[in-house]
């Protein structure tokens, strides 16, 4: 999943990162792990695209990075949402929900089109 080539899913990865960071600052590994846990291991983050996505989002000013220490005292870079990132998160979440429900509605529809009757 989350192939680099797919623009749609690229955007989805960014949304998931924003969502993760809305809980609080986290490092790259933590972000990947949380996404997997939160989706019951359904979505496995392609790690090759995670870090470029993080840098890209940093450039766009959505998230910022700071070096810190983990619970077991190791240095790691923690990302956090900026105010612009928070705004993006709200906007993209509602966008995604509309998109997902629309796709869902279509997929779950039981009314056959006129040409199939």
């Amino acid at each position, binding site marked *: 999943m989350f192939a680099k080539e797919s623009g749609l899913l690229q955007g989805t990865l960014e949304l998931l990162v924003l969502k993760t960071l809305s809980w609080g600052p986290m*490092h*790259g*590994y933590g972000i*990947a*792990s949380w996404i997997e846990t939160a989706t019951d291991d359904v979505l496995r983050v*392609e*790690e*090759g695209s995670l*870090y*470029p996505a993080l*840098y*890209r989002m*940093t*450039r766009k000013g959505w998230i910022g990075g700071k070096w810190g220490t983990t619970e077991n005292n*190791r*240095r*790691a*870079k923690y990302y956090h949402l900026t105010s612009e990132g928070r705004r993006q998160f709200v906007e993209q979440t509602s966008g995604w929900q509309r998109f997902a429900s629309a796709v869902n509605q279509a997929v779950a529809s039981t009314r056959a089109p006129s040409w199939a009757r």
Partner: protein
Amino acid sequence: MDDEIEFHVEERIREYIARGMSPAGARAAALERLGDLGAVRSECTQLLEEDRRAEARRDWFDDLRQDLRFGVRSAMHARVFSLLAIFTLALGIGANAAVFGVVKSVLLNALPYTDADRLVRVYARMEDASMERSSISAGVTVDLSERQHVFARIAPFFHGTLDVTYVGDAGPRIASAALVGPGFFQTLGVAAARGRALVDADAKTGAPNVALLSWPAWQREFGGNASAIGRSVRIDGDSYEIVGVLPRGFVGPMGAVDFWLPLDLGPALRDPIRARKQHWLGLIGRLTPGATPLAAQREVTRIGADIARDHPESQGGMALWTVPLRDDMVGDTRTPLLVLMASAGLVLVITCANLAGALLSRSLARRKEFAVRVALGAGRGRLVRQLLTESMVLALAGGAVGLGLAALCLTSLRQLTIPSLPAYADLSLDPGAVVFTSIVVLVTGLAFGLAPALSVGRGNTQGVLRDETRGTSEGRRTRRLRGVLVSGQIALCVSLLAGAGLLVRSLWAMATAPLGFDPDGVLTVSVQVPSHAYASPEARIRFFDQLEERLRGLPGVQSVATAGELPSPTMNRNGLSIEGVTWPAGEGQPFIAYASVSDDYFRAMRIPLREGRTFGPQDKAGATQAIVVSEGMARRYWPRGGAVGARIRVGPNESFPWAQVIGVVGDVRNDPARLQPDPMTYASSRQDAWGSRTLLLRTSSDPLALVKPVQRELAALDPSFAIHDAKTLRALMSDRLASRRLPVVLMIAFGGLALMLASAGVYAMFASMAAAREREFGVRVALGSSRAAIAGLVLRQGGVWMLVGLVAGAAGTVFVSRSISELLYAVRPFDPIALGSAAAILCLCAAAALLVPVRRATKADPIAVLR
């Protein structure tokens, strides 16, 4: 980034091990999950790199803005220092901008012709070097245009300009005119701005009279009105139709004139004397595509030799040669201009050295400020940049003011209409000159800011912050740097002063050497007799006799005379024949300066008679032509005496009877810029009556007071013509030296500026030296050292650098006097008076400059210092 990914992989491995994988397996699996590590890394690196660059750009501009704000603020803070710095910079940069403005308009700007690089001027020269740029005869122009293959087009023209009487709306006036042969404007590649240019048919015998207006004359006489074309005007009594107006800025190879008239060579060519024996034409040619100026030179020289063989009687000893038209029009202004440009550059270098010294002191005084900034985290590079920005701010301000000064200078130079500059030079600060000045400004700012900027941030920050009292002393390095700067200033200043001194000496020699006549108390007035009303020589002679008679009656007038030509470097010359003498075949006939003068000329000019007599009433038309020669001429051709009574002929016509030398008079210097007098021949105005003459009135009072009375007398005699060029003879001679004077005046100005700057530099060096060792001197005095010993100490320390400067200056002087030797007259390049006084003036000023600081050093108060 690598840390980040490494952390990620390690966390993953830890997770896999926790799930029960072997460490090696866990590692492989973790790496596999990450995918292509190299690709990830390079993508991230690229993203990071772009980030960094954008940020650096932002920072750089932020810093620049900050530095600029700070620079302006610190300049405002040290107001006196900044004003002085901007003032000196303005002078230095302004001098460069102004001189460059002149250099550019004279040497670099295009001539007002199409493809001017392809234009060549043809001259004749005497093999014996008596004439270098001689005109050529009508016959030669025809021979040359028939035999040559190197020019696409060739055009003759009257070599000079002439005065004509022009009757316009405002009555008769004197205007200037040029006579140009067929193809003149086509050769130059110039078309009329209005109407048409002259064409070949205009110069045909019998063609209607037409004239072309110059742009300024069109503006002046016709208000720039298009209706001028087709109008008919009276020039020298003849009616001419105006057919066109030349473009603005057009000037001919002979100069700028009001009217351009076609020249018909036909009559001259039909007269055997005028065709070959009168050399009165200039010649320009446009090279054929592919031909080089060198090829033209070779071909013209060869043809010239052929013509000399065919016509030995008129062309013997005369060779033809060519010069690119630009070089010809630039003339001998090139060397003075380049010398001036170099001098202005030297002044700017001195300015830079001076300001570098001043900034050095200033950055010493600001050491604390820098130390605080370093302590607050500013890097050394940041400090250097800050200081460079500050000096740039000063340079920019100085440059702006300097540009204004230069524009003012050029405006006033334009109004002087310097005769020595080519007529096409428009003397303005065009975009090119502004770009040049901007580059000069940037280089200047860098040059004087770099050394002081680099010297900061090297010191020990903590030491400076802690030690209050030693905040103003300077280190060895700075002291040496300052010493080098001061000795450099002294060296350059000595060289400039020496150059100025040499030029002053040679100008002095030219101006004070006796001219051979007395130019004081004489009024000169040019009079142009309308050729129609006074067609015969008798009428002209009668007119001038009457005029002289009337003027003699004016109060205060001691003597009155007329001359066809006053002494000038470009006098009319005639070929000389002496009875019984054949000129050597290789040399040909000599050409001697010649003037037709009235009886009282020698008395009015106070030229002494050496032998025989001067002209009298017996030398009238029909009598044997009488000739008076100059001493130098008599010595050259009659070295054993016997000049008086000799039979000679001056002029081309060999069928004329022999004339007789009746007297020998003193030599005169026709060219005040040359110390060697020219041989001269004089004829009586009764026997050679020119229509255009100059009146000379010697008076016991102010000559200019006679202008009005002379005008009245002239109008009473014949109201139909105007006089012009009323000037004292002294002023006229002084004008002839104007072209020599300007570079000298500028060199003196540059030398003075350099002297001021160098003195300031010497002062600053001693002042800071004395200030730095004040405590030490106090201790020395307390220990019993005498004031004189302390003064000696200071003088020794600074004197070394001054000595170094003087020695280097001596070397510079050698170079300077070499490069201006071409401009020197009657002065050796190593003239002891000029060089000695340059060094003396400098030492005097330096001594005055160091007096105050040295005195202060000796006044060090031991009690105050020790306490």
